């Protein structure tokens, strides 16, 4: 077993994750692995455990059972330093952005570089500007979150996560809180990331992302991954999978925006 990141070793691997909240089992032994450059998409009904799974993967929520390993190294879930390091390498994008309200766009990005990476202010600003330009917001650096649109906030949040040079990006319904006309700009950024080979695990209801970004679709329901496979397998019309039924319902809602 070679611990150095051999191509076969997944970057992020979770085995048998279980989590209960006040007696209710939200995750029931879920395993998921992400190879370098892979994009997997989590779909399924609300309350199925998608958010909890994503939050367990970077230990924002500590799983009750199961193990997580990063590049073959098992994370000690009881060692805080280990968790801090895991989270630096596993970026997280939230549905409701969670930008730091008291900091402008630039400092939203520099704060972690300075406080976690201990990079000097000027270097951090340089890096932050670069990331802001990547998401097309180089001219909004001085604006505060309350002065940005939802789409701009989410792009700053993505820039903030990328500035930490994560190996994996987890995205928890990144477009769900956005007005329809703002979704496009965030999707464009996510597509660019995919094009650059970013490893991603994303929960989404965005039909256009599901069908043509995913290397693999994971259908999650009641705390279990019930279907797993390539889009071509799971989404072929009339193949009777849960995924295809789910996507068909989504596209009805989305008014024919792409088909499964």
């Amino acid at each position: 077993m070679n611990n150095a990141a051999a191509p076969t070793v997944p970057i992020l691997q979770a085995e048998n994750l279980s989590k209960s909240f006040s007696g209710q089992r939200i995750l029931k032994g879920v395993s998921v692995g992400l190879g370098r450059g892979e994009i997997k998409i989590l779909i399924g009904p609300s309350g199925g455990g998608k958010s909890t799974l994503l939050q367990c993967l970077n230990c924002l929520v500590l799983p009750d059972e199961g193990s997580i390993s990063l590049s073959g190294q098992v994370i000690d879930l009881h060692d805080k330093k280990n968790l801090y390091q895991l989270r630096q390498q596993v970026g997280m994008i939230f549905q409701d952005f969670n930008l730091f309200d008291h900091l402008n766009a630039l400092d939203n990005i520099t704060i972690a570089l300075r406080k976690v990476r201990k990079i000097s202010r000027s270097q951090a600003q340089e890096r932050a500007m670069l990331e802001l330009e990547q998401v097309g917001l180089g001219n909004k650096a001085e604006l505060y979150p309350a002065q940005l649109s939802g789409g701009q906030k989410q792009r700053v949040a993505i820039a903030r996560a990328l500035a930490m040079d994560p190996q994996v990006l987890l995205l928890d319904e990144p477009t769900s809180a956005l007005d329809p006309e703002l979704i496009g700009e965030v999707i464009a950024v996510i597509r660019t990331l995919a094009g650059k080979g970013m490893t991603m695990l994303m929960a989404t209801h965005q039909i256009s992302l599901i069908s043509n970004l995913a290397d693999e679709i994971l259908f999650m329901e009641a705390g279990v991954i019930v279907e797993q496979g390539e889009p071509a397998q799971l989404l072929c019309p009339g193949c009777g999978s849960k995924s295809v039924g789910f996507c068909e319902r989504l596209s009805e809602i989305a008014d024919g925006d792409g088909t499964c």
Partner: protein
Amino acid sequence: MQAQLNAVLDAFPYLLFGAINTGLIVIAAMFIGLFIGVLAAVGLVYGPRWLKWALTAYLWFFRGVPILALLFLFYFGLFPHLNIQIPALAAVAAVLGLTTGAYQANIFRGAIMSLPQGQFRAASALGMSEAAAIRSIILPQALRISIPAWSNEYSIILKDSALAFVIGAPEIMARAQFVASRTYQHLPLYLAAGLLYFFLTWAGVTALRKLEHKVRIPGYTEEEKS
């Protein structure tokens, strides 16, 4: 009328030094309270259970016992018992500081709890330690929100500081009372004392309003029409 005016004018430098002492007591108490209050609030929100218990006991004690009783308890009771010899001014600052610390802890605790949970989560997700998240993300926001309540606390503590005269601290009230009882000019002297308190309240509250405006987060709260 002339006699009354003269009484105040004669006593004015003396009263003014009293006002400086009052100012020192209140500034010291407010900063002791800020220090205690921030730490206690963080402990109450994020601390382990035993710490929450201890802090809750502290809050109950200082919010439940009158300041006059606390002054006597500390100045005539506890300090001599522990062989601590400190001037009355310092004793008053300490007692008022501990008292306002308890109230400020609750102010900051409420402010921390009012922040969206996502703020802390996003900081954690970037690899920040709890301490770093509290320092760099939570407190800067919570303290901003707390300024109006802190300004209230300032004006309350300022007026509570008048109780210091019972243990002989040379502040406004003690000095006004001292002069009034000698000159029998009660009305003008207590009026002057009242005006000095009023001025100190006004100056402090105005300064805090300026601060509130200065650290306002753009776009976050509505700009007040003046």
